């Protein structure tokens, strides 16, 4: 038990994130990682491939087409993994609530650890969320990824309702 706590503590000091540029929010990511806010001070670093990432940052609205890839990317990430949804759109659709091509709630499809509300959230808000996630990881509270195992039927049902029964088999680029 003590060992797990120690690992949690170290993990919280080194979180690599994958910024899938799904929407507008991606524009506030560069200031967060570059000179002004420099999130690397806290050991949080952008990574290019899902295999190497701990945090999955969903930066904005999700169209149907993107959501498929997001689910794929999420499933490729090694566990434990944390999802931060950025902006109003993944929470309730935001300004695109009545669009025919964007989804209104992200947590119907994959579990989310933290939401950053706002359109668009400032870089400080992103920093705040990352530090909050760091705290959660340190205390062992960021467990949303376990939900994906426990409630996979629920998520799978929603995914199939949107993309069709055998979407995984037929997906290409």
């Amino acid at each position: 038990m003590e060992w797990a706590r120690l690992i949690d503590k170290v993990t919280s000091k080194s979180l690599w994130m994958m910024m899938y540029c799904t929407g507008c929010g991606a524009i506030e990511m560069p200031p967060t990682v570059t000179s002004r806010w420099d999130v690397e001070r806290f050991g949080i670093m952008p990574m290019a491939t899902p295999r190497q990432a701990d945090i999955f940052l969903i930066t904005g609205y999700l169209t149907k087409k993107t959501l498929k890839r997001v689910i794929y990317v999420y499933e490729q990430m090694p566990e434990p993994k944390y999802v931060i949804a950025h902006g109003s759109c993944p929470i309730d659709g935001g300004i695109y609530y009545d669009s025919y091509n964007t989804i209104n709630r992200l947590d119907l499809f994959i579990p989310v650890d933290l939401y950053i509300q706002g359109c668009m959230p400032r870089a400080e808000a992103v920093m705040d969320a990352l530090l909050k996630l760091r705290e959660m990881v340190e205390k062992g509270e960021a467990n949303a990824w376990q939900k994906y195992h426990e409630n996979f039927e629920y998520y799978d049902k929603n995914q199939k309702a949107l993309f069709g029964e055998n979407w995984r088999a037929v997906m290409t680029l």
Partner: protein
Amino acid sequence: MREELYSYDLHMGPQHAGIHGNFAYKLKVDGEKIVEVKAVPGYLHRGFEKLMERRQWLNNVALVPRICVPEPDVNEAAYCMAVEQLANIEVPPRAVYIRTIILELARITSYLMMLGGAAAATGVYPVMYWGMGQRDLLLDLFEELTGARIYHIFMIPGGVRRDLPQGWIDKMLRVLDAIEKHIPDYYNMFFENEALVRRMKGLVKITPEQAVEMGITGPNLRATGVPYDLRKVDPYLAYPEVDFEVVTHTDGDALARNWVRFMEVGQSIQIIRQLADKLPKGAVLNKPYPAINWKVPAGSVFVHVESTKGEYGYYIVSDGQSIAPYRAYVRGPSTTHAVIAVEKLCVGLEYADFPVAESSLQICPPDLDK
């Protein structure tokens, strides 16, 4: 036969460090050479044009900046100008000047980001880090002026929402001085960098005829040597009253495109200084219309402006009876750049050069997907 045996598919994007934004290319590669490029757009399709038909004329002002994130103000400007044209609203001269200043500031922020992205594609990260740091100075200015860092929603039909705060102009000029001081650093890191110059020299060379034929606009067009800039050719706002040069380069390759972008930062600073000097006094908003249930007279108009990526335009149709636009079409510059130009010009490149070529064209997928 050879194709079957030796060629393979590479999927660039949508989650790939070399692709700017949520966009994908399907490459067919034979050894190292690209034999076929297919653009796969649509990851950012929100149905903007449908949404705009469902919002009122003024509500749309809050919607349009979201079409292009790196430089949202061109959307506001073009949309407001189109609506003003339809409703025949006179804009006070002070508002015209303030709009022009905002557009030019946004141009600098966008260029700083683009140069960083182009440099990062070849592994030169300092340009990106410095540029982002400097861009934030400008975003702070925007924040003081409009209350938002990215989506300002400051221009509305008839002018701008409010007057400049006390001392804002001086602060802005100081920020411009600070940026100008760093321009040699960018130059040395970018255009004196042996590896970067060697990669970009001669890459995706476009001739002026090809460029016009393919509908390429903006810095990508000017890099081929033709001085076509909408600010001069089809002037709008306060551009006829300021003095600036249209930056051109004759090479038409990736380096030339980035060079044009880089030199335009300096021109933008000059334009803003002139505007700040000449800034007229008076009202900033002429609002002869109700905030809700406003019916714009019937008609249609196309208004285009010069953005950092190219020609940005709004084609707005009003039927005169409904409280929303009957049809709004957004002409984004990336449609021709990302699909036509890349699919036609990037065949025959090495796949290693593809991200560099793509970043030199500066594609912004949201304005293509809409």
